[in-house]
């Protein structure tokens, strides 16, 4: 994939939700282009559509208008979106990322099986080691600290080396130290697997670590890409 060939292209993207009082504008993003290995912070005030953008990219919801092209193709229709996520998307939420009834290792193995990761066991174990939580692999999420849970969530999200890695406020529930650790891991692992990383965040400290920032606004007229290439 050459530099001239963007992995992600967004044009005139708009998402509206129908509400009793009329349609609610959840997101407007006129233009965005990104390449494999890029790391982008998505910022903006609460309600500006950060989460909505990540949902759209994961094909969890459909755009109301505009287009999202990934690797030269439109995002798949709803019927194929599960497969798209399994193969191409890694997703980290703010918290409660793990299945509560399964141990850390089982969480990884289930995700690996859904994504069809080869040699899943070895891959899971080496990732857990890399993240320093291999000793906790038989514990259920409820018996882990939030920082440990988030590290496990990162491990699970990068298990299949997805071309698109999405994280929605992944460090918002953590203290500064843990937030730093988790953010380091995300950036490192995304770079290793050449994933395009998009992290939604309010946090100035997090924002600073990204070479590129996309700022969303609630006001439609002023909305647009504010990010600039490094």
């Amino acid at each position: 994939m050459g530099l001239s060939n963007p992995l992600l292209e967004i044009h005139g993207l708009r998402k509206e939700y129908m509400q009793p009082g009329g349609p609610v504008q959840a997101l407007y993003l006129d233009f965005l282009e990104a390449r494999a290995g890029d790391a982008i912070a998505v910022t903006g005030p609460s309600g500006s559509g950060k989460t909505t953008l990540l949902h759209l990219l994961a094909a969890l919801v459909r755009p109301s208008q505009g287009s999202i092209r990934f690797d030269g193709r439109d995002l798949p229709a709803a019927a194929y979106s599960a497969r798209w996520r399994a193969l191409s998307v890694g997703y980290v939420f703010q918290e409660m990322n793990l299945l509560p009834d399964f141990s850390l290792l089982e969480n990884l193995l289930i995700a690996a099986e859904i994504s069809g990761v080869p040699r899943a066991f070895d891959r899971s174990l080496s990732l857990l080691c890399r993240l320093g939580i291999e000793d906790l692999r038989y514990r259920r999420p409820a018996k882990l600290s939030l920082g440990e849970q988030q590290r496990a969530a990162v491990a699970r999200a990068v298990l299949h080396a997805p071309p698109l890695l999405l994280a929605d406020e992944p460090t918002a529930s953590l203290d500064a130290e843990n937030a730093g650790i988790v953010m380091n891991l995300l950036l490192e692992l995304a770079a290793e697997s050449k994933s395009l990383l998009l992290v939604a965040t309010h946090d100035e400290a997090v924002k600073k670590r990204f070479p590129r920032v996309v700022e969303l606004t609630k006001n439609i007229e002023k909305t647009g890409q504010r990010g600039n290439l490094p």
Partner: protein
Amino acid sequence: MKSSTKLFIASRHLRSRAFQTFSVVAVVAFSVGLAVALFLVSQGLQLGLVHAVEPFELIVGAKGSPYQLLLNTVFLQDAPIGNIGWEDYAELSDDVRVGSAVPLGFGDSYRGYPIIGTVSSLLDVRVRPSDPPWLRITQGRWFEEGRFEAVLGAQAAARSGLRLGDGFRTSHGIVAGDEHSEEYRVVGIAETVQGPWDRAIFVPLEILQSVHEHEHEGEHESESESEGEGKEVTTVLVHPASYADAYRLAVSYQNDSGKQLIFPAQTAIRLFALIGRGEAFLSIVVYAVEACALLTTLLVLYWSGAARSRERMLLRVLGLPFKTLVFISWLEGTIALSTGAFLGELLGRAGAHAAFSLLGEATAIQPTVPLTLQECLAPLVLLSVGSLSTLAVAWRDARNSEEPPR
């Protein structure tokens, strides 16, 4: 996703919600058990009763309730109906329409085991002409008429404590308490007839009659006894000379003021029909219990499904296909339901066997457990309806998880 992984996820979910799982299993097992037990008991009882009635073609006894006559003669239960005169028996046995007639005298007992006064021609009774005799002796010999001798039915031999050679007095003999009452001596033991008559103790009818006469003399000396011979019989088992003769006999008894003739098989069928009405009510109760079980199950699945919405969202974000998500939830419900249904089937069978052995002890009716597997109908219906509704709940749950997580 591999089937083993789906099963792994479903069973883990069931285990981590042990209380809910237990409730579903218990409530389904209970309701299915009830239905199965009821079905088996009613079927087994019916077959057992039919078997018990088989050797009796026609019964003649005192006028009264035909059911009472049936219960007295065939099942050795209920208060004895009145007696008829010896001459009525004599008349019957001389009748050309009668192939053979066996007189019976009831009303006496030893430790709850009914004494039947009869004659040796009882040994000639056969269920079908080609069959061996219905009542056979396995140990000792048949009693000699006119002597205080007794033959024990199979269950009476096993449970009354009497053995070959033992002597015993009947309740009447004891009540009479005079020098005339003698001890009966056990001279033989009968092979099982797989029916209520296994509880009987057979003695010569004349002896029984003489004991009763003494008793009457003792108790009602002031009353004038019947001027006839005074000997009485309780019922007469009749083997008609032909099929047509059976009906002719029945017609001739229709207007008799003191006696009645019944076809035990028909009377039994009418009795079952009466019982059947109670059974119909019971099966409504069973259906209601099953419906409650189903509702409870669905409610539990619904709530635990609702509690799992976050998990379903996560699985969906991981890329698990919609139909796999539905399948796993459905599997969870169906595993719980089938476990309950299976345990219920076992429980029902155990319950039926317990009921049968209690019943067997009290009446010697030998209910046979039918091998038709018809009793599986209740668990199967519950399982299929439950499984379908579980699918609906699972589908609804999965649809509701389409809302993206935050």
